[in-house]
């Protein structure tokens, strides 16, 4: 007790700074959590949240009932794994390259250019993609492939290309933001480390592998752990709007979010949507905790908690 008061007295400005965040989290995240029970009820407006009948796990069944359940979980997991892996590797590479550029103007120009896609709404991205891919007027079919003498491809009816298209779009869009996080860390690395490396006769490549990357390690681990929490979620715009909701592509574009949307759009069943949301969160939570356990076993200093 005495210890607590002492800590409080000593660090009170820090706790004060902490307070708005706590209030925000409490209002925005803890209070709405009473709605979790909706996932276990057959909700109707007249009886309200507490009056609606309790149905147990009935609302969760549709998520596991058919072959689609396997497909959507597979797609969600694999796409997210690729996004995380590829996104991290590319973001780090670009951040390092950017750090090597000495011309300030060029550096800022590239940084801005790479960040722009992150600021564009996915709906607009879907139209940009359509401008490239459409059969009638699309750039690829009507200009690029024509010049190369390749017959036109019916993009929106051919599933095999879409895993690549989706990964490309996601990486293109997210790269700028991830890159900035890593770039900021790189800028914060102590310059004397590099100077020491130069004195020891290290070339540029050796400086990167022996100084930059080790210094980035904890940032990489934290960011990866965070993204693991969202591994059961997907960017709805990317998987629904960018493929223009095209039926033949569903096997490669269906994720848990689009499945829930397609299935419940007509019935407006709130209980079942909540069940899907809860399922995603619980799996995400378990993944974060497990991954952190593993990290702690390997390297206790880098783990989140």
């Amino acid at each position: 007790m005495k210890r607590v008061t002492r800590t409080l007295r000593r660090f009170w400005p820090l706790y004060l700074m902490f307070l708005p965040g706590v209030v925000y989290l409490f209002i925005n995240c803890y209070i709405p959590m009473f709605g979790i029970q909706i996932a276990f009820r057959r909700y109707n407006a007249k009886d309200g949240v507490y009056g609606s009948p309790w149905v147990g796990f009935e609302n969760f069944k549709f998520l596991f009932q058919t072959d689609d359940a396997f497909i959507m979980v597979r797609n969600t997991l694999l796409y997210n794994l690729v996004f995380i892996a590829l996104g991290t590797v590319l973001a780090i590479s670009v951040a390092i390259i950017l750090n090597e550029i000495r011309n300030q103007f060029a550096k800022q120009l590239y940084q801005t250019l790479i960040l722009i896609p992150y600021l564009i709404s996915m709906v607009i991205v879907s139209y940009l993609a359509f401008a490239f891919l459409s059969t009638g007027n699309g750039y690829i079919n009507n200009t690029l492939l024509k010049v190369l003498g390749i017959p036109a491809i019916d993009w929106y009816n051919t599933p095999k290309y879409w895993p690549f298209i989706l990964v490309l779009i996601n990486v293109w869009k997210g790269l700028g933001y991830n890159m900035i996080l890593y770039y900021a860390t790189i800028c914060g690395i102590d310059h004397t480390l590099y100077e020491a490396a130069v004195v020891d006769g290290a070339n540029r490549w050796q400086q990167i592998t022996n100084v930059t990357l080790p210094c980035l390690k904890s940032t990489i681990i934290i960011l990866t752990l965070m993204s693991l929490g969202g591994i059961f979620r997907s960017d709805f715009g990317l998987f629904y709007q960018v493929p223009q909701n095209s039926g033949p592509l569903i096997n490669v574009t269906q994720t848990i979010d689009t499945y829930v949307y397609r299935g419940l759009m007509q019935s407006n069943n709130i209980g079942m949507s909540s069940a899907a949301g809860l399922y995603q969160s619980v799996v995400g939570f378990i993944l974060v905790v497990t991954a952190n356990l593993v990290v702690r076993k390997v390297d206790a200093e880098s783990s989140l908690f």
Partner: protein
Amino acid sequence: MRKLWKRSAALVLAGLMTVSLAACGGNSGSGSSSGGGSGSASADNSGGSSDSGEIVKLVVWALNNAETEDAAEVAEAVSAITREKIGVEIQLVNAQDAEQIQLALTSGEPIDLLNYNNLTGQLTAILRNNYAYPLDGDDDLIHNYGQGALSVIAPADLEACRYNGTLYALPNQKDTSRSAGFAMRKDIVDELGIEVPEYGTFDDMHDILVKVHEAHPEMYPVVSTWAGGGFQQPWPMDPLGDNLGVLPNVFDDSTTVENWYATDTYREFCEMMYQWNQEGLIMPDITTSTENGLFGGNGFSMFENWKPGKEYEVYKSQGKECVFMKVVQPHKYTSLPNGNSWVIPYCSPHPDKAMQFWDLMYTDADIANLLVNGIEGKHWVWADDAHTCITTPEGVDPNTSGYPSVDWSWPNQQLTPVWEGVDPDLWDKLNEFNESGHVSPAHGFFWNSDEVMNQVTNCNNVVSQYNNSLIWGTVDPDATIPQFLADLEAAGINDIIAAKQKQLDEFLANKTE
């Protein structure tokens, strides 16, 4: 010690991050105290004595694209009448999309009258979640305050708004039967000298399309009715709520629920469309196109519903004159009269006043005209001295008016004058058309899918995967339909059909009693 503190704080934060996503993403609006909304509503309703001379303000969510100021002006003009008559003022709220309606209903926003046209799932979705206030419940609103409306509405149409014996909505005085076929560009038809019969077959249509394709290879012979492969079905099929288990042909009066996607009609249609597509008669990328209004652009024809006055409606929205060839005779089923209409939401603070105002919208010509057409001199003027029809004021383009008329979205368009260029007998013809519709044997039947909700969700997913490409002929039906049917079966379509058949049989047995 400090390490432990750091660790536990991080654990809490990580937990928050993931769970907060659940709260924000999963149950949008579910947390926003719907319980409180319903509680306060019932408390207010039981009072029901707002006749104490105080003016009550009703919030009316309508379907229109009016400018905010114009809508406010119309609301003020309407209020001037209703203040005297029933002690009510109204506030008009504009063009709400499906998500906004859904969110407002979930969160218990006080709305007194709601046009649910935009809501996906329409009346069924409202009833499933208990969003509507019963009209003949304990306070019997409809008989106490709605006699005027009852005297106007056709009894058969009213039956379509009853669910488990309780009345929840009232049908608008619009087209309650449907007939469908092709809308074609009049200029092209005239130019090529094509004879368009009133009723025809798909073969007739094929001949026309081939002719047009030869003469105008730059045009798309068939385009979608709205973005993403929008399509008005050219079959007399009663979808029984959700298209999963249907009566394939209302004209043969069969009451056997069938899997629509397994019928010969569906297969033959898909085969035909596949062939049309091979011949280049259908716009490329039609299922993924993001454009509305293709008909007014570079299209020649589209699948469209028909009713008296439809030609003018198409002209108004697409800017091109059209002629119709119908392929389906008029018919009616439950979701036609009860689609695109109004309810009093459960969270209305003044359901009795809302009902009185609703009744006036059915019976008061001034109110109906203000709501449908806007203000005289500003949004419309009489086109002739005899006051038979109206037109836009000089200098106002029909597409840029601050209060575009969406006549069918209001309870009684038939009290309003017709627009210049439309048949002056439009309303008589519309009623005649409504009565001429062959009534589906399942008319008035409401499908309650609660018991097979999981199967319905899964089947909807299967349908969204296959149906659109099949009906537009972008995939080969010989290969795709068998796969489609197999997936449907795996998703449980047979459970749905069995459940639906059982409910329908019960409904029919009660009806004959």
